[in-house]
């Protein structure tokens, strides 16, 4: 299973070039102490994988990597793993990786995870991959370790898609990129002199939908990531925008701007049939599908200011339910994967735009960010992190916020980065 996923990931990874640079802004208060025991092989390959693995674990915000575990004997006098020695180093978990090379092009990474407190081995895994894709091997190991300790999947092996905008000598260029979740290994999906907005991953992360202005007006396209083949999803004289995939990948919620009155429709991809979801003279746009597929959240100005509303798809035609009341601007909502809440763009009383989180069980919104113009929040598929775009003083960058409090920046080495979209799980 893991092997198949790894091979499909191999198709779009050749170089390790990084566009986005990782800067750690803030860690968690009470991290888990973990040590990675370097057992053999100080080769460049094991160093690369080890560095990726460490970086990933730190980036989760959950771990503190403790160095120097090798000073403790691996086994105690009874030839069992030296849990007592590890406890003396105040370790919570120990990872023992082992690398070998079945042939010139491939790599085997075996790793074992030990719970020091419970004195037991909690995971033994093997990852097979190609030498051309070492970083993804490290990401897979990190996600496995994360899952064995935290109990839910890690997202180091997932992808982030974003739009890069540059303007040299009045020549505007828009590039749609995907990269690993740490900003490395970026790949160009689309380059255009016309604006590209609203990129969205299909649930299986094999296709992307986005809005391109290449025909002079906004239109939605679907592009296959590995083949590059793309299609206009709906031929219309009016603008079409704001794609959001249904969790089964068969439908796309879109906004059709008919006569200046944007309404949300569900487009069945197979036969292009349309079902109208909203019916109001105000702005209705920015649909987002819940993970279970039974609800759609959207932005509407029907109350006079943009607010979030929700439609239960079992009762289309009934009045949508308003779900935000905080201030005069709440827009571009997206559900947390477990459906227990949603993140959105909120305008504060000072007039600044921040990313906010609202849990269903709570009657208030939590403001998560503090710059002047934060936008485009996208939640990681395990629900633990939010990537969003920061725009301040003409600089655009991506920032990743961990719900546990840690925060990281991914500033671009060139141009402006905006509109990040987190892929689904790929392992």
């Amino acid at each position: 299973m893991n092997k198949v996923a790894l091979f499909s990931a191999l198709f779009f990874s050749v170089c390790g070039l990084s566009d986005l640079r990782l800067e750690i802004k803030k860690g968690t208060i009470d991290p888990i102490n973990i040590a990675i025991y370097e057992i053999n092989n100080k080769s460049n390959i094991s160093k690369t994988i080890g560095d990726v693995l460490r970086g990933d674990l730190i980036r989760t915000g959950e771990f503190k990597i403790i160095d120097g575990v090798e000073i403790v004997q691996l086994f105690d006098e009874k030839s069992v793993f030296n849990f007592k020695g590890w406890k003396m180093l105040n370790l919570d978990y120990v990872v023992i990786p082992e690398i070998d090379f079945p042939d010139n092009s491939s790599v085997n990474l075996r790793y074992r995870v030990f719970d020091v407190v419970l004195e037991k081995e909690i995971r033994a895994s093997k990852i097979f991959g190609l030498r051309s894709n070492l970083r993804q091997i490290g990401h897979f190991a990190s996600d496995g370790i994360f899952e064995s300790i935290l109990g839910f999947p890690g997202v180091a092996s997932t992808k982030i898609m974003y739009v890069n905008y540059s303007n040299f000598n009045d020549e505007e260029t828009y590039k749609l990129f995907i990269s690993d979740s740490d900003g490395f290994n970026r790949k160009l999906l689309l380059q255009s002199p016309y604006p590209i907005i609203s990129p969205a991953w299909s649930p299986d992360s094999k296709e992307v939908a986005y809005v391109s202005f290449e025909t002079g007006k906004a239109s939605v396209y679907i592009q296959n990531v590995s083949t590059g083949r793309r299609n206009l999803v709906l031929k219309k004289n009016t603008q079409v925008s704001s794609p959001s995939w249904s969790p089964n990948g068969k439908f796309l919620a879109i906004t059709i701007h008919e006569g200046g009155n944007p309404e949300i429709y569900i487009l069945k991809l197979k036969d292009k049939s349309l079902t109208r979801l909203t019916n109001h003279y105000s702005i209705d746009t920015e649909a987002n599908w819940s993970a279970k597929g039974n609800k759609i959240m959207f932005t509407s100005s029907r109350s006079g200011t943009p607010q979030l509303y929700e439609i239960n798809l079992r009762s289309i035609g009934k009045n949508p339910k308003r779900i935000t009341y905080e201030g005069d601007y709440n827009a571009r909502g997206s559900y947390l994967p477990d459906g227990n809440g949603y993140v959105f763009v909120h305008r504060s009383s000072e007039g600044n735009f921040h990313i906010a989180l609202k849990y269903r069980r709570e009657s208030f919104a939590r403001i998560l960010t503090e710059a002047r113009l934060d936008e485009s929040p996208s939640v990681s598929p395990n629900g633990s992190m939010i990537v969003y775009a920061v725009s301040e003083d003409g600089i655009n960058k991506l920032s990743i916020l961990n719900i546990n409090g840690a925060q990281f920046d991914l500033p671009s080495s060139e141009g402006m980065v905006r509109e990040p979209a987190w892929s689904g799980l790929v392992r």
Partner: protein
Amino acid sequence: MLKISSKCMYFLQVSIIAFMLSACSSLKITDEIVPSDGVQGITISKKSKATQIILDSATIYFEYDSSRLSSESIKTLKDVVELMKTDKAMTLSLQGHADERGTREYNLALGQRRSESVSSYLIASGLSNSRMEAISYGEERPLILGSDESSWQKNRRVEIK
């Protein structure tokens, strides 16, 4: 142009079939129509410099999160209506824009509403809707870069081209 030449082809085919059908009998009766070769071409010329100057200065500005036309905007649009009535062939592209604040999709919708409110006024003034197209660039094409009210003011606009 393309349509008319295909019509010619149609008549040509009809007469060939008629000829083939009648070829086996001794008496040839043919009935043909030669279509008129009237061709109606369309010339799109660049707007004159004078027109261009008027349109350039006819950019319509809006309040925050609003697509309502101000009385000043209506004055400006009256000049555009006059221009359109004088030059009956002129067509317009109405391009709505928003400032950078708020979300991109909401701003795309807002820009569209702005260009449609200009288009509604022009139609209400007696112009045909076939002479204009209302589109939006949302916040993607700011006129002025800058994150202050004076820049935002200039970016909340409909450009008439």
